[in-house]
């Protein structure tokens, strides 16, 4: 469950990225966030992941008031998140395997467990054969899928994906979306920022549209 109450975010530059934002995402939902470039999609996800803090207002995630999550509790809070970045953020001096393993290494899983889950995760995104490659040797789309594998490897309760299909061809995009849907079906709350309006309409999920940091519409899926 994610709840925003009158949330403002002003960056140090003075830019108001979010203005008086109110929204509610149910536990176990799969929701898309759209809006023009600069509308505040990434900012919204960063606030939920505690990468940034809101300037004003209240954010509640899984019944935790984020304002009260400080210090080491930020780390514990993030272990229940899977995050996919718009710019991949893979470590170029680490193999694909090591990149995907990162969230589990950080949480202190045993090597056997890590190996099992990383392989399962890479298999899901169809990159098992590339586990020993380095990110720079991969295509943009492959890198993005490594990012997906890393975001889900530790079975987070909440998955935040920032433009997860930006570099994928339509077929792969659709496959990735289906993958997110699968996670959602086993109980993971999924929040996806995306430009690809046409595709997300086809998935018939709630869509939150932002415009200049404000909530424009909240569309419920339309039955065909």
């Amino acid at each position: 469950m994610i709840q925003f109450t009158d949330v403002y975010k002003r960056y140090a530059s003075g830019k108001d990225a979010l203005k008086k934002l109110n929204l509610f995402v149910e536990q176990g939902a799969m929701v898309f966030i759209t809006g023009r470039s600069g509308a505040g999609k990434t900012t919204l996800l960063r606030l939920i992941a505690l990468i940034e803090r809101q300037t004003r207002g209240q954010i509640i995630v899984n019944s935790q008031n984020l304002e009260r999550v400080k210090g080491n509790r930020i780390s514990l809070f993030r272990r229940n998140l899977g995050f996919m970045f718009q710019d991949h953020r893979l470590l170029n001096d680490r193999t694909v395997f090591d990149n995907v393993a990162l969230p589990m290494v950080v949480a202190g899983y045993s090597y056997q467990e890590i190996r099992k889950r990383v392989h399962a995760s890479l298999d899901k995104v169809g990159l098992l054969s590339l586990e020993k490659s380095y990110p720079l040797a991969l295509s943009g789309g492959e890198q993005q899928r490594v990012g997906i594998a890393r975001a889900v490897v530790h079975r987070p309760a909440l998955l935040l994906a920032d433009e997860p299909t930006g570099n994928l061809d339509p077929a792969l995009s659709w496959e990735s979306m289906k993958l997110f849907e699968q996670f959602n079906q086993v109980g993971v709350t999924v929040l996806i920022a995306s430009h690809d309006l046409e595709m997300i309409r086809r998935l018939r999920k709630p869509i939150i549209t932002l415009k200049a940091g404000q909530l424009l519409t909240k569309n419920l899926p339309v039955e065909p």
Partner: protein
Amino acid sequence: MNVKRKPGTGPNNSLGRKFQVWIAQHARAMLVSTGQLSKNPIGNIFSIAVIGITLALPAGLHLIINNATQILENWEGNVQVAIYLKPHVDEAQARQLSQNLQADSVIENITLITKEQALNEYKTLSGFAEALEALEENPLPNVLIIRPNINSLSSVAGSELIHRLSNMEEVESAQLDHQWVNRLIAILDILKRGVIILTTLFSIAVLLIVGNTMRLSIFNKRTEIEIDKLFGATNSFIQRPFLYTGLIYGAGGSLVAWCLLLLLTFIIQDPVNQLSILYGSDFAINGLNAKEVFALFGIGSGLGLLGSWIAVGRHLSATEPT
């Protein structure tokens, strides 16, 4: 959300399991740290050498002052006042005087060296036995050797004692042997304080060296640190490898410093021995004892740890969300 797992839990939460995780985390941190060190051997050896030299300077000075103090303290045990009695004072009078003086609290003990004893000793030691045999009269005076009570003898009390003794009517002159020893000991006391100040300064230097080296390596790993943190790494998880690196720097620096000190003792050993022989002493230079070596390693490692702890702590607090 997934209700099967409590939020923020790791792989498993039983105590034994937690301990296993803890051990595994430390093993990993050590591996990461040593891996990082072996990636840049030259640079790291340089850093360790600089830390070693920095530690060796105050430690070396400490060693030298310690040895000097030891030499002087041995001499101090021999601080004595020689009282040369006037020629007309005979042995019985000298004995009486010695008994009177024994009551003085500043005086530990008194030995009378009669002129006959002195002459005999001189004969055997000098090798001029025959020449001295020719003397009709013993030219030497009776001498009282006073060993003052070191504890109660300040330098003021010392000169006062001499003054008092030389004013006695039987006494020709009284001399405090080795007055310079006391002066040197006083100077060494000042130097010891200097070593403390120097040690503080050089400790700060070690902190700065380690901190700065760490700052660079943190900067090189900032992307990784950021991503680790985004996926829930705790500050201790991030810190641990750097702390191990700091510890290795500190301990390595201590090892270098110790080797330098061994080299120092080795180099000055011969000349010191020669000097000892010249002075008829059996003094041999002392290296660091076990306790001091332990302290050197403790201080070095502690500084390495502290330096990296400060550097990583500063970086981590700068990356908290605002």
